């Protein structure tokens, strides 16, 4: 079976290794990853600025591009949540609403797809590290895909999970928020980094590229030897 890769712009241009790991994980469970050409951005950034009108053309592009996909898999909870919102952008009776519903219904965040659609938690992955999990608000609260992430990580050989204080708390990114209110964003992020340091972990894992980038940038700035990892990178662990 084929699984169509929905690659967020952040992954395409900043975190390509996350895309690679996602393809490897899908291959690991016997699926053929397919990358539709011409992907750009799901429109989340524009949507949260309040401009649904500017998201609609992007939604239509996406719906057309993925109309024939058997399943759409994305290594981002927030982008998946955006696609799940697409139908609400079109008025009832608009044919695009129905088409968007069909596409939204087969779009899944990676962990959610593996656990809830395929019923797989143990991928035979191996990753030697003591890591802490940043649940990501968008993945856990907004999309409701927090427990698949935990179930998958529990089966990774060699991985020890160190508890994170206030695991439910935001890392302070929030898309345009981080630029519009840089001081507040930074203050929230600084606390998250403090909590990660306090966990004693040597790596921090999340299923959300935006959080990953935000946390990685702060770890790099502080020159902390803590590895930022996407869920897919951990699940691809042990594969050559």
């Amino acid at each position, binding site marked *: 079976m084929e699984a169509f890769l929905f*690659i967020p*712009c952040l992954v*395409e*241009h*900043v*975190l*390509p290794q996350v*895309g*690679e790991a996602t*393809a*490897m994980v899908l*291959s690991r469970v016997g699926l*053929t*990853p397919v990358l539709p*050409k*011409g*992907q*750009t*951005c799901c429109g989340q*950034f*524009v*949507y*949260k*600025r*309040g*401009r649904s*009108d*500017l*998201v609609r053309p*992007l939604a239509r*592009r996406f719906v057309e591009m993925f109309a024939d996909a058997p399943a759409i898999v994305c290594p981002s909870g927030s982008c998946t949540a955006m696609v799940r919102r697409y139908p609400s952008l079109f008025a009832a009776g608009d044919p695009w609403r129905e088409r968007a519903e069909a596409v939204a219904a087969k779009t899944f965040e990676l962990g959610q797809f593996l656990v809830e659609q395929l019923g797989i938690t143990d991928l035979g992955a191996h990753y030697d590290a003591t890591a802490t999990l940043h649940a990501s*608000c*968008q993945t856990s*609260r*907004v999309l409701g895909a927090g427990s698949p992430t935990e179930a998958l990580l529990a089966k990774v050989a060699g991985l020890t999970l160190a508890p994170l204080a206030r695991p*439910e*708390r*935001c890392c*302070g*990114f*929030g898309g*345009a*928020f*981080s*630029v519009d*209110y*840089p*001081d*507040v*964003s*930074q*203050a*929230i992020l*600084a*606390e998250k980094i403090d909590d990660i340091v306090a966990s004693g972990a040597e790596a921090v894992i999340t299923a959300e590229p935006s959080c990953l*980038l935000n946390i990685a*940038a*702060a770890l*790099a700035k*502080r020159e902390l030897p803590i590895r930022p990892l996407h869920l897919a990178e951990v699940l691809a662990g042990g594969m050559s």
Partner: protein
Amino acid sequence: MSKSAHDFGQASAKALGDRQSRAILHKAIGHIRVLRQRSVNAMPDFSERQARAVAVRDKTLARLPDLLETLEAKVTAAGGQVHFAETADSASALITKLLADRGVRLVVKGKSMVSEEIGLNDALAAAGIEAVETDLGEYIIQLAGQRPSHILAPALHVSKEQVSELFARKFGRTSTDIPEMTRIARDSLRQKFMAADAGITGCNIAIAETGTVTVLENEGNIRLSASCPPIHVAVMTLEKVVETLADAAVVLDILPPSATGQTLPVHLSFFTGARREGERDGPKEMHLVIVDNGRSEILADPVLRSILRCIRCGACLNVCPVYQSVGGHAYGTVYPGPMGSVLSPLLKDNPGDPRQPFACTHCAACAEACPAGIDHPALLQELRRRVSAGESDPAVTAFSLLARHPLLFGGAAALGRTFDPKLAEVAAVAPDSPVGRFLRGRAFPGLSRPFSRRFKSLARRLSRKQGGQS
């Protein structure tokens, strides 16, 4: 961008600079969150309670005009008088006139957010009426000449050293011992309770079928304010009504646990009208002032009306990462945090920064914590939609246009790759530019060779491997 008297961006940056207040805020909010969580965990039926409360709030909103008429009739039958006020200003003017006409000079007040909303203390002061806040936190705030920073714990941001210094200045009694400072406040306030000509309180729940004003508190100052002076004025916003005692019980099932982590507060009081024939105390006159100030229009708004379910428990403030970092004052309004970011812009007076709904990380912790089932993120999204519909946003428009054309989008990223090593230089030259502020605590990893260009070889490798396995 629209201009506004209040700028949350500036105010929050300033608040972040106040390390002492932030440390106290941090400790206090952490404490309330633990109490709330412990209390909710101890109630295995909390989600049932929550579902009932949402149903009661929605039923109430659907029947609001009828319930207010019943409330009016029942309060009147119990010897009280009911007044309606359209705006904040008319509400404070109405109360001021009512008290001035009766020769009132000294008023004791229980903590009431609506009295802050309508600017009552300033109006009373202008009429020469002394209004003393009697909630300890609110009293501290009043003595310090400040505004509350939290809807439940108004002095959340004040340290005991600051209180001590304040009391030394105001009362000439010095102590940094918290029980002793509490005693100093008790002694001072007692004289006010005994001498006051009128008491003003808020109203957590008004019960229509009985004409009852329900208030919750731990200190007992509201009970004193509503019991000792010869006049009691209760102020409520119009959505605070419920139909029956049973409906009140449903709201009381979730309010104290969500607010303070208690099953019940120390004092839960039901006041129904004025003192009755033969009673020797209690107010001879009881007035209930019902304030609209924009809420009837919110009710007519099919998307935003659910904010009127709010029972003012403060749970959303306590879990909001933005509120936790900057505190209540940065919002420049009476109602801060998620509920305030939705409600304040919709009020007639003092709406705060119109861009407040943008100051949100979209983390949805508020919706998860809300016992009244308010989906703050969805309401904030709608407010953002309305604000941005009326303004141009060149960056967002350009981004959207680029994203419609993969070649342009990819080209822009390629351009970005050549320039992004320079970002750090921009930040160094202009540390206060958006880029500079963004990079203050972050080292941006830079753009990479796109995934889509790496995919083909990866896919080949993976398919070979799969083929080999099967």
